[in-house]
């Protein structure tokens, strides 16, 4: 069981290749391996063009990998599934349906035989959960960007997915709205132990939300450079997170990666780099204490790149 739980999502050697117009093949990424344990919140971070959206679409089943497979809960995925809900970058609400209609569409797709009253009740419950009580009968066009994305979140959560997939869900929102929505998502996901894979290019968002942060190098031929374990405590809150002693250690590490190492990593791979097992990097005070006791150096720590 523990084995399955730590490999709840197992990405096994997937590749994405496109035929080039002048012949030949462009490889966005290949031989990509990643494991996500059950109940963990994982952010994938990288520059545009590294194929992170492709990775998410493959997880969602909307794209098929050119190679490799993805195994979820012991089963290889073969297409989209109600087990994996997607929150799209553009909210992707059906504009001719009301808020309630949009959520009810998902609920009635999940429980085909449910009666109208049941579907209605459940939809309203999730609309209330994301703080949209009173807007059930509005059309998406009457809502602000943040409210639309809330509906998208309610729709995704209402079907009780095993995995929640998010593709830069807050990138189109203003900073204030983004902050409140991040709070809500974190509150709901930690309360329910939801397994989440989220694409982002926002370093602060990743540090606030994620348990693990996956760093992808620049494409083409992108790869997972390392997985950073978030050293900040589970009960972190937005207001004080930046005062935590490890906050800037992590932040600097991520920013350094995005600024330079995402470009140079491919040519300067640390010794012993194995794409099947991307190194897990532990940062901050707790990790340093452990390092003192342990003589084996961590691969790919900040010092390795000089």
């Amino acid at each position, binding site marked *: 069981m523990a084995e399955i739980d730590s490999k709840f999502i197992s990405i096994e050697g997937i590749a994405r290749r496109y035929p080039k117009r002048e012949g030949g093949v462009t490889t966005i990424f290949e031989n990509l391996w990643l494991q996500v344990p059950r109940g963990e919140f994982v952010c994938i971070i990288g520059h545009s063009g590294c194929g992170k959206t492709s990775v998410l679409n493959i997880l969602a089943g*909307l794209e098929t990998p050119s190679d490799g497979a993805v195994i979820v809960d012991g089963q290889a995925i073969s297409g*989209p599934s109600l087990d*994996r809900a*997607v929150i799209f970058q553009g909210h992707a609400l*059906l504009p001719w349906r009301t808020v309630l209609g949009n959520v009810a569409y*998902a609920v009635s*797709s999940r429980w085909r035989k449910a009666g109208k009253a049941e579907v209605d009740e459940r939809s309203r419950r999730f609309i209330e959960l994301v703080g949209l009580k009173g807007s059930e009968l509005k059309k998406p066009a009457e809502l602000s960007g943040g409210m639309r994305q809330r509906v998208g979140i309610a729709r995704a959560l209402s079907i009780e997915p095993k995995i929640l997939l998010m593709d830069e869900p807050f990138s189109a929102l203003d900073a204030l709205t983004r902050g409140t929505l991040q709070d809500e998502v974190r509150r709901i996901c930690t309360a329910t132990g939801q397994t989440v894979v989220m694409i982002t290019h926002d370093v602060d968002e990743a540090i606030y939300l994620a348990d693990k942060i996956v760093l992808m190098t620049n494409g083409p031929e992108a790869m997972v450079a390392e997985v950073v374990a978030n050293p900040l405590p589970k009960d972190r809150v937005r207001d004080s997170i930046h005062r935590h002693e490890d906050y800037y250690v992590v932040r600097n590490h991520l920013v350094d990666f995005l600024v330079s190492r995402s470009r140079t990593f491919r040519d300067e791979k640390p010794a012993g780099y194995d794409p099947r097992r991307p190194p897990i990097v532990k940062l901050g005070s707790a990790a340093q204490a452990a390092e003192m006791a342990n003589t084996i150096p961590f691969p790919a720590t900040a010092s390795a790149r000089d």
Partner: protein
Amino acid sequence: MKSLGVRAGILSVVLFLAFCLAWQIAVTPSTSSGPALDPEYAKLMGITTVGAQSAMPGPLDVAQKFWDAMKNPFYDNGPNDKGLGLQLLYSIGRVAIGYGLAVLVAVPVGFLIGMSPLAYRALDPFIQVLKPISPLAWMPLALYTIKDSNLSAIFVIFICSVWPMLLNTAFGVGAVRKEWLNVALTLEVGAWRRAFTVILPAAAPTILTGMRISIGIAWLVIVAAEMLVGGTGIGYFVWNEWNNLSIANVIVGILLIGIAGMILDLILARLQRRVTFPE
């Protein structure tokens, strides 16, 4: 300051009155100016009956005829003397049948074409060739093969209104946003339910645009077709009154054609508004 609508209404009425006045002045026989018609010549030309009065009726004559026609629109005194309302109903009936058949064919077929880029590409040249053919060009072929003038008129309505709807439906279905389809896919919605719950509502405004273009074409076509096939209908009425040299009745017919066409368009416009969604 009154609202724009009220002001526009007042301006419309003023323009209408000015037009009628100009019309009346233009057809009023002038007594003082110009040389009087030589009576001999007038006799030769067969216009003695109207004297100096122009054959062109004034607005009051037309209004009188219009009122007469509206008083009893549905009488039927044999093939050459039917009420205008009845004639109009014949035309609308033909359009309804031909156009209805076109909707039944164009929307489902357009749907299938729109779903398949291959079919869209393969059928496009045929549609592009068939679309610009004048309705009346079909008439001889229709009359020869169908051998029934009434059915031929309906066929011509059908063949002319089918293309805009077909193209618009195919285009609307093909242009449904990928993300909406992805929503349905991730919710494991089956093909049939997806067609009716995502593709149809998303394409509905485009489909209705095609239907609106088509009803306009159908109404243009029916008048011309009825002039050719004869018998009944508002187009036949106009042609018949031309043969009777009753220009006033011709103008009444023209007016009614315009009003009926406007109402048909308004109905479609209202339907279109109902399916249009703001984004």
